[in-house]
């Protein structure tokens, strides 16, 4: 019977390996969404490094654990002596210092990427591409018009669709209209909470769009519970190949907006 328990515990590392390769084979919703940015590749690489390291530790610990269960099974060994020891100073030092070293290394190793993605001093020196306002339950994007400045009469307002173009530093200002939201583009691997009363900056660059899904179908999600319709805050990221394509879309959208406003008798 004891062997059964050892087998049961052995199912854990085996199952972990199994589901890992199964999910890898499945791809799609069970794996990283295809990345389209450089920062995404950095983040993925860090993920794999940590997975490699923790995976090694995990299988090491599991192997030792299972080996001990097997070797020191007490069945039929009643009355046999055990190793009467209260510990070992050298071992304690060893397994404190080595993990400490690994952990500090891991932490320091993250600094560069973290700084590049989030420190404001690292924000690209470009004008704001758009202002994102989160609200229950939609994303509003305000793009500067021909004058390149926000909050002027020629701005474009769009709901739930963010247009950008490739190889361009995109800088966004994030605000919330009501409660806390979080602007999350899985394909870009970027996420930032929007806190009412605060202005956040976010920047990224789409560098490759060859992955699936189609270039205009990257989804935007809300990652901070914002109410009953939290799951409804679905936006779309459309990546244009060139700036000219983007400008063409912008001109067209502005013309449509002006026409709609004229119809409604809104004069700004």
């Amino acid at each position, binding site marked *: 019977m004891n062997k059964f328990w050892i087998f049961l515990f052995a199912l854990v590392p085996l199952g972990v390996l199994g589901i890992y390769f199964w999910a890898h084979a499945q791809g799609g919703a069970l*794996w*990283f969404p295809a990345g389209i940015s450089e920062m995404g590749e950095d983040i993925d690489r860090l*993920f794999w490094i940590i997975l490699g390291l*923790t995976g090694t530790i995990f299988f090491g610990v599991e192997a030792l654990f299972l080996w001990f269960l097997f070797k020191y099974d007490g069945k039929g060994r009643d009355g046999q002596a055990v190793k009467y020891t209260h510990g070992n100073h050298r071992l304690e030092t060893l397994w404190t210092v080595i993990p400490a070293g690994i952990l500090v290394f891991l932490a320091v190793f*993250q600094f560069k990427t973290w700084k590049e993605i989030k420190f404001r001093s690292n924000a690209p020196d470009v004008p704001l591409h758009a202002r994102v306002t989160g609200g229950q339950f939609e994303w509003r994007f305000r793009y500067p018009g021909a004058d390149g400045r926000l909050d002027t009469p020629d701005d474009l307002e769009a709901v739930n669709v963010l247009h950008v173009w490739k190889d361009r530093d995109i800088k966004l200002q994030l605000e919330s209209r*009501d409660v*806390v939201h979080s602007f999350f583009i899985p394909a870009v691997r970027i996420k930032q909470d929007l806190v009412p009363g*605060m202005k956040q900056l976010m920047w990224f660059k789409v560098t490759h769009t060859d992955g699936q899904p189609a270039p205009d179908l990257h989804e935007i999600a809300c990652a901070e519970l914002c109410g*009953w319709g939290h799951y409804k805050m679905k936006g779309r990221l459309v990546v244009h190949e060139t700036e000219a394509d983007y400008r063409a879309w912008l001109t067209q959208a502005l013309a449509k907006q002006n026409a709609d406003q004229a119809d409604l008798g809104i004069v700004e």
Partner: protein
Amino acid sequence: MNSNTAAPAAAHDHAHAHDHHHHQSFLTKYIFSTDHKVIGIQFLFTIFVTLALGGLLALGVRWQLAYPWSELPIIGKLLWPDQGGQMPAEFYPMLTTMHASVMIFLVIIPALTGAFGNFCIPLQIGARDMAFPTMNMLSYWFMWPALYFFLSSFLVEGGAAAAGWTSYPPLAGIKSAAPGSLNGQTYWLAGLLCVGASSLLGSINYITTIVKLRTKGMTFFRMPMTTWALFITAILQAFALPVLTAALILQLLDRTMGTSFFVPENLIVNNVEAGPGGGQPLLWQHMFWFYSHPAVYIMILPAMGVVSDVISTFARKPLFGYKPMVIAIASIAGMGFMVWGHHMFQSGMNPALGATFMVSTMLIALPSAVKTFNWLGTLWGSRIQFTTPMLNALAFVSMFVIGGLSGIFMAATPVDIFIHDTYFIVAHIHYVLFGGSLFGFFAGLYYWYPKMFGRQMNEFWGKVHFAGSFICFNLVFFPMHILGMSGFPRRYADPYSFDTWKDAQPLNQMMTIAAVILGFFQIILVANFLISLRRGKKVDGNPWRSNSLEWHTPDVTPGHGNWGAHPPVVVRGPYDFGAPEAAQDGYLGQTENKYPGVKA
């Protein structure tokens, strides 16, 4: 009973004088009891109720994730006849919010600190009772208003709190922000204030009892790990809770008195002006996590203590590295106060601050690693008895390794950008709190049951419960890591409306089925628990041949005052299994006192 005198001598005389000829009514003996053992058992019975409640709420969540917008089985038609029995979108966040709140505040914390803390501490240190028995009774009875507030909040206008167990304002604070924020949130805050009072009363009591009431010879470094862990946990609670209490009261004022501690200027939510403003939503997050991160350790440290006791007993070998283990628990508690910001990496908090929180968070993995290595060291060269408590303790170790290591991904700030608020986090917390704390609780339950009731729980059904729980637990929660890698978001009533995640539904259905089976296996536990009260195998005072003091009471199930006329005298540490002078099966008790119920 008015034995609420703190002085040990007085308690001693009192207990002595009244020991066997003191008639108590049913009401004072079992309901308003001040006896620490009865209170511990009261907590235990209550936890079966709250565990069932929390589990059912979880199954509601799982149902929606497996078969969104379809009729909820059994109760769907009853609850929502107009919608064909399917849960409305407003209800889903109430489920996640209340599942987490019930499980954390009404199951795990009271199970480990309430049930085991009360039952074990005085017995393990050779005391006759807690230092403040009446306060102890109050600590139990404060649980009930909390449960009342949580339950009744489902019936108020708007329904139960729905802003997550983290209750971030303005969503939680502004009445127009969510249906659950209309009234339910106020009930939630009231419930949590009661839980806080309960915890605080308990923790002050534990600290005082351990510092003042240890029996002769019971030095600090002769205390079993369970008591050590509960001691440090109590200190942690005493220091962290006031901050949460303050935050709860501030949110309550925001909601009821028109203040704006967490409300920024000019905020309009759903066309309703949200008050004068001038506050800061992030302030709540800081205050909340300043308590709630240590709370994670409040939920895991006692389980670590229990598991250490159980592993050493059934390995028939001294705990490897006893002092390093104590130091590890203490440093987890100390560092636990310096890591709360890792919940806020993406919150808009200064990213430079995030970087420092990353370093402290990485380092807090260290004592956990040390503990794991020491458990392995305990198994090395041992003689393992695969009893039900031992199996659950071994499961703790093997699950905690996963839960600990997955924490490193989140500690790494850049990786956290992607996995924050995804199912990766849900996987992590459940590996720590279910795989860890709850399996630790199971281990302790099977282990101390004979001391509580003089009978043993059925080993066969105990093992069936263990095997089923262990397999189903992993089937439910391991795939969540995989979902997390795809960015699968938490707290979504319908993630499949996104192309990115629409293919994840079959996996979620499998997980839901496993969750239902997991629930059924808990029925075996409850049945085994209840039936064994009458039918369980009768045992002597020390069926596991353990060394620590609680197994050396004069009666099989200790009576009021625990120790009869003569409190025990401690002569050695709790883990001297297999010492040269030990009995053949490795037993070497902590006390030389030999009582009728205990075989030498």
